[in-house]
């Protein structure tokens, strides 16, 4: 499937200490929640940022998507807190 880029924003980015990672694509059937759980398993800042998925929102290829959405053939996933613009 090639690489999958994961970008982080706000306190998710700060807790992880990076603004993006590139991982092997987990396959089209994996959900956003699966990806979040896999990353949280890295421990440290990842566990801190991603341990409680109720606090997280996500996008697949720049479109908001619920965490139970399958990643499909996406090239970029974003993980972030609820937005607070305006």
């Amino acid at each position, binding site marked *: 499937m090639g690489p999958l880029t994961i970008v982080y924003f706000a306190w998710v980015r700060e807790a992880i200490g990076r603004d993006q990672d590139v991982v092997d694509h987990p396959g089209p059937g994996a959900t956003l929640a699966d990806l979040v759980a896999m990353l949280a398993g890295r421990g440290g800042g990842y566990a801190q940022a991603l341990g409680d998925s109720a606090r997280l929102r996500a996008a697949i290829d720049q479109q908001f998507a619920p965490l139970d959405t399958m990643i499909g053939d996406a090239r970029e996933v974003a993980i972030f807190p609820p*937005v607070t613009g305006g």
Partner: protein
Amino acid sequence: MKRVAVQPQDFDAAAELAALEALGGGGVASFTGIVRGEGGLVALELEQYPAMTQAQMARIVDDAMARWPLLGVSVIHRVGRLEPGARIVFVGTASRHRTAALESCAFLIDWMKSDAPFWKKEYFDDGRTAWVAARSEDDARARAWQR
């Protein structure tokens, strides 16, 4: 006329209004959001998702133009460090009908508050920092437009 901008620099609300007024409609509505300096706040830092933000803003402007008879829309959101008194966000709408201008302006600012991919970090005078939490009230207002 359709204008969507995400930018660190300040904008000229008067120039935006003048452009909307020149479209020949009967009414121009606007909303400008300003940084409040309460509780010892010394600055806000506005973060965006660059690949997504402007595209999503353009999409919601298209939605508004499909829903109301609008002659023009201008939406601007600033990013980066903003101090109290600074403008954060501007929405301006022009229409032949004042109700369309007023309602679409409210719709767009509600969306900007609840669905645009921006995040605010607060810096206080005692050195504390805090990411602003989303308000369920804002979500409820945005959902109310989905009738």
